[in-house]
């Protein structure tokens, strides 16, 4: 049994590399120079929009913090554009493979967004020229988030959607309040969704909060990794 597992592990690595190479070739067959230009423009556009959002939301707060703590405001926004080259074959374990990896400066836990800046997932594993991204709806996806930049909670994927855990009932929250990424350099720039349902169970200390995410179910061909 042990030998069988060892053989299978060796086979798995070789097979994955082969399949991902074939899949990448399939996806890039129809690529044209116009498409590269479009990708470049989309990347610039997204970069400017994220900069603007970050500035609007954080400028006042940063001014106070800078005066109080005397630290330097980091204003660099690194983006790595990447194409989706493969999906996980099972829809119960949702993740994607991108054609950029550690050689392009991607590391684990970096956020992945679409061209509108909506969160798609985060980097789970990196290889030299590829990375695996766990999607937001994957049950293994967890991330700290803030509700309207005030309350903190834990975003958890549930296959059919996402929910926020560990928000105490003593807090006031309303439907349609926006949800942002927390504890990230792009915390106030990366929007995740808005609250769609709030339940207060008598036997539970916390709310049961459902979130409608902004990212579309049909993923774009090109996504961006936030450095």
């Amino acid at each position, binding site marked *: 049994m042990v030998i069988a*597992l060892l053989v*299978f592990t060796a*086979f*798995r690595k070789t*097979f*994955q590399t082969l*399949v991902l190479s074939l*899949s990448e070739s*399939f*996806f890039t067959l129809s690529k044209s120079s116009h498409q590269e230009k479009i990708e470049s423009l989309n990347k610039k556009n997204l970069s400017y929009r994220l900069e603007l959002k970050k500035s609007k939301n954080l400028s006042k707060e940063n001014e106070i913090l800078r005066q109080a703590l005397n630290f330097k405001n980091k204003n660099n926004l690194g983006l790595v554009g990447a194409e989706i080259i*493969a*999906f*996980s*074959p*099972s*829809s*119960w*374990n*949702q993740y994607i493979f991108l054609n950029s990896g550690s050689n392009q400066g991607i590391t684990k836990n970096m956020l992945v967004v679409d061209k509108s800046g909506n969160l798609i997932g985060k980097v789970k594993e990196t290889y030299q020229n590829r990375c*695996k991204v766990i*999607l937001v*709806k994957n*049950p293994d996806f967890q991330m700290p988030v803030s509700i309207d930049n005030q309350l903190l909670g834990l975003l*958890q*994927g*549930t*296959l*059919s959607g996402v929910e926020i855990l560990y928000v105490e009932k003593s807090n006031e929250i309303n439907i349609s309040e926006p949800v942002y990424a927390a504890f990230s350099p792009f915390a106030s720039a990366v929007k995740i969704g808005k609250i769609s349902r709030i339940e207060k169970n008598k036997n539970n200390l916390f709310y049961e909060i459902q979130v409608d995410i902004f990212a579309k*179910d*049909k*993923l774009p061909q090109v996504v961006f990794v936030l450095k």
Partner: protein
Amino acid sequence: MSRENLKIIGVALLSLLIDIIRPLGYIFLADTTFLVLIALSFYNKTFFIIFIAFALGIAQDALIFSSKLFYAIEYPLAVAVVILLNKLLHFIKTKNHPLVLKALIAALLILIHTFLLALTVKSAGFFYPAYFFMQSYLIFFFINGIIEKTLRKI
């Protein structure tokens, strides 16, 4: 290798490719590979289809990091069950309703498949498995229709 077997291999590989490339992303939830294998096992009742199922199961396990030989065991078992039930329940098959037996067996297999997958996920809930089952069941008939046209019955 016969022309029939080559067609079966081609169809099976195409189903795996569809699962990997996913033209519609995860809007399309069904496991195309599993549905194609069930549909094929109604036409090819030999050990060959069980071997194909095992090969595809190994391929799928190799691409899904968290599964350890789950599909390699499930797929050939599912195909074997289809072949066995098809033999045992032949009295249900009639001239006027040839799809009845297929529909019953497919429903049973897809239900078991959904149940096993739901066990592997910590927060599946009820909605997602139910939606997955319904979508898979409907798509099975579509796949079955395509396979009937491309492969001749054995």
